[in-house]
Each structure stands twice: as C-alpha cells, then as structure tokens.
C-alpha cells in the first residue's frame, strides 16, 4: 500500500492584550515571582466571576478576519471540565459548538512549486490559558509539584486547521507564515520557545489509492518550528514502519520528547477525557456586530503577503528575498528601517539574510535585540561604498559590531585600519595591478568602463580597503594613458 500523509494542526496563540481575559491582571507574566500576577478571578477563588476583556474579542476577530474566517455574530463560551492542578477552577472557559470564527483558509507557497496550497481553517476560538506546574525531579517520578498561577487567564486564540497538510514541511511552512501573520496583526509575538505560540498536531496515514483514512494520533509538546518538522517526520516514519510490519496504529495522544527526538505515548483513546462541555452560565453570549467586523476588516494592518509584494515592487528585490524578509514582522521592520537610510536595497537584503540572520541564530538573539541596529548596518555599508573598508573586511567589522555593539567607524579606527596616505606606495600597487591585469587594461582602452571598476577593486583588495578610492580611480586612468 502506498500511504499518503495527513496532518492537521491546532495552534494556540497568546493574545497580547494588556489585561488578562477575565480580570484586570497584567498579561506580562514571564519572569515574575510565582503567584504574584494573580487575583481572586484568575485564581478561581470561590465566589469570583469572569468578565470578558473586550480587547480580547477584538484581537480574536482580527485574527479570524485575517485567516478569511466567517465570524459568528453570536457565539458562546463553554466550560471544559477536567481536573489538573494548573487549572484552579477545574474547568477551562473555552468555546465549543459555536466558535468565534469558522470556515477560513490560508494560502501557503511550497518550495520548488509556483502553485499555492490552500489550507482550510476549521475554526478560531477564544479561551483562557492555564497556570504552570514545576515538578520536583521528573514528571514521571516527582515527590512534589509547585503551582504557579501567573499564566492563568492569559487570553488565547485557538486556531484549528483541516487535515490539509501532506508533509511535515508543509505544516512547518504554514506555521512560519501564521506566525508572521499574527505578528503583523499585532495580536501575538509568535514566540514558540517562550510558549506564546504553541502547536499540537494530528497525524495519520491514508491509502493513497482508495483514500481510506488511517488511525489518527495526536502529538503534543511541539514547541519550536524545528520540532514541528522533526516530531511529525518521526511520527510519519513510526507509523509507516508499524504498517509495514503489519501492526496496527493505536488511536492515542503522544508527547514529543525534545531531548530524545522521539514521541512517547501519553494516553490511549480509552483514557481520553470526557470534558463534559456545557454553556458557561457566568458569561452572556458573545455578540459581535457587523459594524465591528467591518471596522476591523477595514483597519487591518498590512499582512505579510501584501508586504512581500510591496517589497518586490518598491525595493526591486527578488521574490525569494521578499519572502524571507517578511517571514517575521520584526525582520521586515528591520529591513524597512534600513532601506529608508540606504538606497542599495539588494545589498541590504543580502547582508540581512546572510550575516545578520546567521549571527542572530548562532547567538540566539531576537532581531529586536540585535546589537547591530539598521542604522549601524547602514553605517558600515557606507564605509564600504566609500572604499574605506572592503567587502571582506566588512565581514570582520560586522562580527565585531555584533559582539561589541560599537559602530563600524569606531571599530575601523580602533583596529588601526586607516587609509594609506603615501601616494608613492599606492602608485606602486596600482602599477602592479595593471601589470597583472593587462586584459582589463585593454578592455578599458576599448571603452569598457566596467573594467576600471574591476581594477579599482583589485587595488582595494591588495590594500585591504585602506586606499582612497577617488585617488586610485584617477591614478589608474593616468597610468593607463602613460602605458
């Protein structure tokens, strides 16, 4: 049997409203002393009641609209009941049979294909986040656990896709684009490592010929873009192997173990929770009027798709560059800031996609916290243009800038890289270059101006960029005349 991979995703994004979803507590909880960012409402103390933060609704509508969903003008909250110490009320206020957004889609472009894939969005709904447990020792064997409720009540939007992905790569591409969209919408910072964006996946194999569906396995704890691809690939391989061996696939929930690169069984279908959903009696039905939807639609910020096209048109950069530069909001912002200060947009995109991203990844630094600001990068590029440093030297200067945060000119000065002022010495180098490149000299004499640039570049190369370019320019022209 030839199998086809079938994957669906469930993504939770933390909405960046100022206050939590049902109380006045701040959403800025990371790094705070445990249980200090709480109140009777988010602690679920007896007698407390939830009141919806209207901003949460606005953010969720914005997300739904951007994902081309139909908005249910009346939706409602349900209680999802289960016992766990990170859930102080023992139920999560969520949405069930009438979610806020339904029947949306998002298009993704696949590598090595000009065709777009339409991924259907089943639903977008609003719910509250739970707290966090800290286990003494290991989760499987722990003598006690501590609960931190600071995260309780952080607003979440859950985005559920149809099982439209045919490979782990597609799922990853979707996630990257989704992250960029929610960043551009200003509703979520999309930080998977810190948990502001979290992903669960459903995966099964179906018979490619007959279309007969396979048994579905749910994978949890996939919390980086790399992990998504790895975990899904592991699961595809595991299921294929089982089928090849004539084994059956069990319907179950599996946990991705990031340290061992495997998925492990968490619970079987029989152990699955009965959440006993019922309408939340403490909250009124959620009403969204058409005016609000239209207003949000009208004032939707520029989305990555549109921005990408604008980059191609306005900055004349290749589609590939534009795709990468708009893959995160902060990266696009960085580029736009830089391009407003520097006219060679392609040189800029090369430096950003190359050196900058490489250094950021290596040092695990967010672009917003980059020691090399757009201004500093442009400053360095200008030194290069002025011939003060060569392209090769620039890489060293960039690295030093990244490490020290200093501006390029200061690094150049401190490293003792100054221009050669001895004209005789320069003329010697010019002569040497002309001797070695008689073909270029000939080209120049035949009117090829480009050859001159090449010769200047060669001199720069020998001097490691320390020559004054206009002097070299004139010197070469004069020496050639003499020859």
């Amino acid at each position, binding site marked *: 049997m030839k199998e086809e991979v079938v994957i669906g995703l469930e993504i939770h994004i933390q909405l960046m409203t100022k206050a939590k979803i049902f109380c006045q507590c701040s959403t800025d909880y990371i790094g705070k002393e445990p249980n200090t960012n709480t109140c009777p409402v988010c602690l679920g103390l*007896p*007698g407390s*009641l939830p009141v919806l933060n209207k901003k949460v609704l606005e953010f969720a509508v914005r997300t739904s609209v951007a994902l081309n969903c139909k908005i249910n003008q009346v939706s409602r909250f349900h209680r999802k009941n289960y016992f766990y110490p990170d859930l102080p009320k023992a139920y999560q206020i969520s949405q069930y049979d009438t979610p806020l957004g339904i029947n949306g889609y998002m298009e993704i472009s696949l590598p090595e294909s000009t065709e777009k894939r339409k991924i259907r969005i089943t639903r977008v709904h609003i719910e509250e986040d739970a707290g966090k447990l800290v286990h003494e020792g290991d989760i499987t064997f722990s003598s006690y656990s501590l609960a931190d409720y600071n995260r309780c009540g952080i607003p979440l939007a859950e985005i559920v896709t149809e099982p439209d992905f045919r490979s782990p790569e597609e799922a990853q591409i979707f996630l990257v684009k989704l992250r960029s969209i929610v960043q551009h919408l200003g509703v979520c910072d999309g930080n998977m490592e810190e948990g502001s964006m979290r992903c669960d996946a459903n995966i099964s194999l179906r018979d490619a010929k007959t279309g007969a569906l396979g048994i579905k396995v749910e994978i949890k704890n996939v919390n980086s873009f790399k992990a998504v691809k790895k975990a899904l690939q592991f699961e595809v391989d595991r299921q294929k192997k089982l089928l090849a061996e004539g084994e059956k696939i069990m319907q179950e929930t599996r946990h991705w173990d990031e340290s061992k690169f495997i998925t492990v069984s968490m619970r079987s279908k029989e152990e699955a929770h009965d959440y006993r959903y019922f309408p939340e009696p403490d909250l009124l039905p959620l009403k969204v009027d058409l005016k609000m939807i239209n207003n949000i639609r009208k004032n939707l910020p520029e989305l990555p798709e549109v921005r990408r096209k604008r980059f191609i048109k306005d900055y004349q950069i290749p589609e590939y560059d534009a795709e990468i530069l708009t893959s995160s909001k902060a990266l696009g912002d960085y580029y736009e800031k830089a391009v407003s200060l520097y006219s060679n947009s392609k040189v800029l995109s090369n430096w950003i996609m190359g050196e900058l991203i490489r250094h950021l990844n290596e040092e695990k630094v967010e672009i917003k916290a980059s020691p090399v600001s757009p201004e500093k990068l442009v400053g360095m590029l200008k030194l290069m243009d002025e011939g003060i440093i060569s392209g090769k030297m620039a890489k060293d200067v960039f690295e030093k800038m990244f490490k020290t945060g200093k501006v390029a000119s200061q690094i150049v000065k401190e490293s003792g890289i100054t221009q050669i002022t001895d004209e005789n010495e320069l003329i010697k180098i010019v002569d040497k270059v002309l001797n070695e490149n008689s073909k270029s000299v000939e080209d120049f004499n035949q009117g090829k101006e480009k050859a001159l640039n090449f010769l200047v570049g060669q001199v720069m190369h020998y001097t490691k960029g320390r020559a004054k370019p206009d002097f070299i320019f004139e010197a070469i022209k004069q020496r050639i005349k003499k020859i």
Partner: protein
Amino acid sequence: MTLNQLTAHEVVNLIKKKKITAHEVMQDIFNQIDKVDNSIKAFLIIDREEALKQAKEIDVKVKNGEELPSLAGVAVAIKDIIATQGTETTCGSKILKGFIPPYNATVINKLKEAGAIIIGKTNMDEFAMGSSTENSAFGPTHNPWDLERVPGGSSGGSSAAVAADETFVALGTDTGGSIRQPASLCGMVGLKPTYGRVSRYGLVAYASSLDQIGPITKDVTDCALVMNVISGHDNMDSTSVNLEVPDYLKSCQAGIKDLKIGVPKEYFIEGIDPEVKSALDRALKIFEKLGARVEEVSLPHTKYSLPTYYLIATAEASSNLARYDGVQYGYRAEEYKDLSSMYQKTRSEGFGSEVKRRIMLGTYALSSGYYDAYYLKAQKVRTLIKEDFDKAFSKYDILITPTSPTTAFKLKEKIADSLTMYLTDIYTLPINLAGVPAISLNCGYNKNNLPIGLQIIGKHFSEETILRAAFNFEQNNDVEKRKPSIKPTKHKEAAE
C-alpha cells in the same frame, strides 16, 4: 422590650433621632445571641469586636451631626456562602474549613457603605444543597418556633437568626427556594430577586444560572430597605443587569386596587397541608378585600420543575464544585499516594453525602452520550416553564401560591429520604427556573403555632409590584403577628 426585638427601619429611625445609640443596639443583639444561640445554633461565626467598633463609629457620626446612611446601626447576619474579606467563609462544608477570602462580595461592600454592621456568618446546608439546614458539616440549626423542628433551608441559619431576634436582617441565597422556604418556616419575610437584579460576585456558586442573593427580614418594609441597598448592576458580574433600581420603600406605599392576581391551580394538588391551604384561602380573601382581582390560572409545566431543576442545578454544581480539589485552599486529605488519590480522598472526606449525591448526578447529566437526553432536554423544559410564566404574566400582575406545602417539619423527619426532602421545594423551584422574583411572607399560623408562608411571584424586575402587594397584605392581615418564645435547651447532637 429589648432593642433587638425592633425592626431595622425602627432602629435606624431611633438612632437618627438620638433616642438610642448603635452601641446599645449591638449590646442587646449580642445579649440575645448569648442567650439563645446555643439553642438555635444559627451562627457559625460571630464578630463581636468589629461590630461594636463599627457601632461606636456610627454613634460618633450621630454626635457630630453627620448624615446617616440608610442602614446605619442595623445588625446584619450573612449566610456563610457569601465571601467576607478576612472572615472565614465555609459554605457549611468541611472542605472549605479555614478558607478566608481575600475579598468581599459586592453585596457586603454595599451593605457596609450603607452603614450596616455585619455581626457574623450563619449556618446553612452544605453549599446551599438542602431544605432543612441539616446538611451542614457543623450541625443543624433549630427553628425558634419549635426547637425540635428544622428552620428550613438552605438559608436556615439566616432565617432562624432573624426569627429569634438575634439580628434584624440576614442575607440568604436562593437557588431553588433557599431564602423563601426557610423564611416561610420561620415566619419571616424573604425575597428572591429577579436573576440579575443583585450581583452574585462573591456568592460561592452552587448553580450559577439560578443563584440569587436576597434579604430575610422581619417585615416587608425592612425587605424593601435592604433591596434598595443591594440591588443594581455590578461590573464584576456579567449576568447582573444594567437597569435602574426603583425606590422600593416608595413602591410599597401605593395600594393594590385592581391588581390582577393569578392563582396557579397546579400548586394546590396532593401533598399540600390542609392548614396551609386554608391559610392561603383566607389570605386571598384579604387581597380581594383590598380591591385586587383573584383568578385561577394554569402553569401546565409545573410538574416538570423538580426533575428539570435537579438536572440543571446539579450539572452546574458538578462543575462549580470541582475547584475544591485540595490544591489551593481549604481541606486536603492527609495521606495520599499520588495526584488522583489526593483528589479522591480530599473530595470523599471533604464533602457531605448530599453534596456528593448532587455532584454525581450532575456529572452524569453532562457526560458524553447523556448530555442530550438529560441536560439539553432539561434546558428545553426550562424554556417551557419560563413560557408558562410569561403567558400567565401577560394576563396577571402577580401570582400567589403557598411557599411550602407544609409548615416546619421535625429534625431527621425527611433527611433520610432525598426525594421527600426535594418535594418541600416544589412551589419555589419553578421561580428560579423562570428567573422571576418572588417574596415569601407570613400569612398565619397552624394549630401548633407554626408559621405559614405565602409566596408572591412577579414578572422579571417587578420587585416593586411584589413588595407593594406584600406590604398591603402585611398591613391588612387579620392574623396578629407573633414572636416565638424560645426556651433555652442544650442539644445532644454534635457536629458530624
């Protein structure tokens, strides 16, 4: 006569006129509590020191000629299911023993602003589940009219405290009759407001779509006085309604000529005590004498109220009470081997049997595969019951029924048989399902000197009308108002 025997409005007026001091009032209140509460057992907690301090503050205000708020110097007892900042709030349950809320319920803040003095917390059926106050983890409360009998429930501590002159006013909560039935059995006035009239913030939830806080008082004027204070929209409760609150004291003043009264025939069938029935008949004649028109009306879905209530209320309760898991506060089992055994032992040991029965019933009603047949169907029937009332109110201004089919029954008489106990609320349950307001007030006594209650039901947010009808009846009732005579008794039974 001692000052504690007065009504709240009398006390406020006398303090304002400098005839008495708030401090004297409190002394008489606490003297009475010292004298009778060992026999009644209405209170779980008494806060004497704070009350006396507040009384002195009011007396200073009087001395300085400051204007006094509407409940200045009025002792108020609070059912122990309403959160009081810094004071233990147990809901009559072992599982919340030691729980001290860090915040006040909205009604507590409102009462305090109005100058009321909170004197303590009253006994109740555990988590308001019961009709006799026998389901308290801290022992039963006794009816001041006959210490061998129950005060009703679940707000039995509140109604007994008012009846025994241990307080002027008490707050109760009513999910299926828990204010009105004990008010009836203790001869007091009890009002369950329209759902959404009074904020539920700080009321520990039993069944969120049915719960309301309301007053238990000695007369209708006091009831209106307290309703003026506790009613109104609250930003902390999404289900509280943003509607202007009329002056209920003023609304009492008008007459009831031409008021159209419907008497639902379904409320006068088997199970009703003949003495209750005849007291009702006599009361209806008084209404007619006052110019009201009394007619029979039908509420055809009445018979489904009990099963509907016990599906919806228990379903919500199973979720509301899930938070008592021993993790954050309250009782936790001492020995357990893992998380699930901690949950199981904590909840098995911490809850009483009636609470466990209702949690199981509600869990079942919400379970996958049963939801449609039980919870969903109950919601549909609830709509039908509501429509019965809408229809009746298109023709009538108010409806009048007995509050309870019987007078106060004996302790232990019904506790062994849940269904018999559930039937005592048969006249009050439909009102909560419909969300409409209803008041219970005394209309007479049986041959054993036990009070009989009358229930007046109104349209949504028509507390004005039911208070007016109740006030007119109270002023013109031909049965003289009595007070119970309490013979201090030492009770054998200890807390379970």
